[in-house]
């Protein structure tokens, strides 16, 4: 839908939250790991790399002038055995012109529309990590649009990480505790940039940590975006 068509829901304008209105208009899509409760291995990446730390990538294959993809949230759940000695999780977001997809350790994923009254025909082509970190291919016109840092502390099995892409309101902090948490899992929320992927462009996210060792992190995930 073009940007200038106002969505009126049975005579109501703007009564619901932003996310609920987008969902009611059939604009919200999610991508999840295939089986809840079963995580997918990522990689024990301990340093920045522009190409070797690929978590997910979305390319917008809508025609020029068509719908833009707006990232909303990404949630990672550390379902399997956690790496030892983590302190901080780092991430970067990039955009680039053209169609980019992860290669190497990756799988293509199928987004679904959260509104059952609409078909799941997203213009977003989604690839995510699979049994390793994905490889980000060489691209042109690349922009680094977000640098994120999540103070997870010691990583505990069942921790979750939520990245908020442009949500209104104050950012959430996290209180460091007097000693590393050992068995008590935590839900961490991190701000990320308002990330838009115009038609004919791609966006992706890289992930690494300081300084996990021993075990490879494994994640379930939910990637949520609007297409409008």
């Amino acid at each position: 839908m073009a940007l200038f068509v106002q969505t009126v829901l049975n005579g109501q304008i703007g009564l619901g939250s932003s996310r609920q209105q987008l969902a009611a208009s059939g604009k919200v899509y999610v991508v999840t790991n295939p089986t809840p409760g079963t995580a997918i291995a990522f990689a024990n990446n301990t340093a920045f790399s522009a190409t070797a730390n690929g978590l997910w990538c979305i390319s917008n294959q809508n025609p020029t002038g068509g719908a833009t993809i707006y990232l909303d949230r990404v949630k990672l759940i550390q379902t399997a055995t956690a790496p030892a000695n983590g302190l901080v999780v780092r991430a970067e977001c990039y955009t680039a012109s053209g169609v980019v997809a992860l290669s190497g350790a990756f799988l293509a994923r199928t987004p679904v529309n959260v509104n059952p009254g609409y078909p799941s025909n997203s213009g977003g082509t989604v690839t995510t990590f699979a049994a390793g970190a994905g490889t980000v291919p060489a691209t042109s016109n690349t922009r680094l649009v977000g640098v994120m840092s999540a103070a997870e502390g010691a990583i505990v099995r069942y921790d979750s990480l939520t990245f908020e892409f442009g949500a209104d309101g104050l950012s959430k902090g996290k209180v460091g505790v007097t000693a590393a948490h050992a068995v008590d899992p935590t839900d961490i929320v991190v701000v990320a940039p308002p990330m838009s992927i115009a038609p004919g462009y791609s966006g992706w996210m890289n992930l690494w940590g300081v300084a996990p060792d021993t075990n490879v992190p494994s994640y379930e995930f939910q990637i949520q975006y609007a297409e409008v």
Partner: protein
Amino acid sequence: MTQILLNGQIGLQSSRQSLVAAGKMFAATNPTPGTAVAYSLKTGFSISANGLFSISNNNPVASGINIQLDRLKLIQTATAPTGTLVMRSEVYTETGIVVMTTAALAVTPVNLNPSFSSSTQAAVTFFSAGAGTIPTAVGTRRLVGVGSLATGVAVTHDSYTFEFGADGQAAGTVGLTAARATDPADLVTWMSPVTIAPNSTAWMNLWWVTQAANTPSFEWELTYSEL
């Protein structure tokens, strides 16, 4: 189309207050406050055996009236299960009418605005003395939300709130250096914005890693809008 004006004002209040003022918000609760309903010891994912609630939209397709989930609160009123770490949930949607069966209780929603009738086309069913059973698919089924709430050790009188598409940022939790023992917590997590189109259904499954002894028992409040 007729736009709703509240005494000549448009959009001055919060989204929820505007919806309530327009008579669009409903709540479904456990029958008796203070008395929890037994759920079940579910420690693994199952697409059909972990039913917490189902809600169907019986409005005709031509009406275009959607049901939009707002919040679900669970209160662990009775003895808490032992050994818990993380509460897991999934939300599915399906075209067609699906009603949770077996350990199931039909619940009658009420309109939050007393000047409007409690007439709703939502059919709400919650667990009752066990987890509900999700029937075989009648239409197109989609997994639209994967929830994870780091509860740590559950404590009697904990509450667990699921936000379906609220504005703003999600609330997190802080992992402690030692597991809590007697101090109850109000924990909040986010879920997808869940829209239930006319003649469609959504339901939520719930399980808990790695609960051992004692069956969880919950009071609940589910709020939703219908417009």
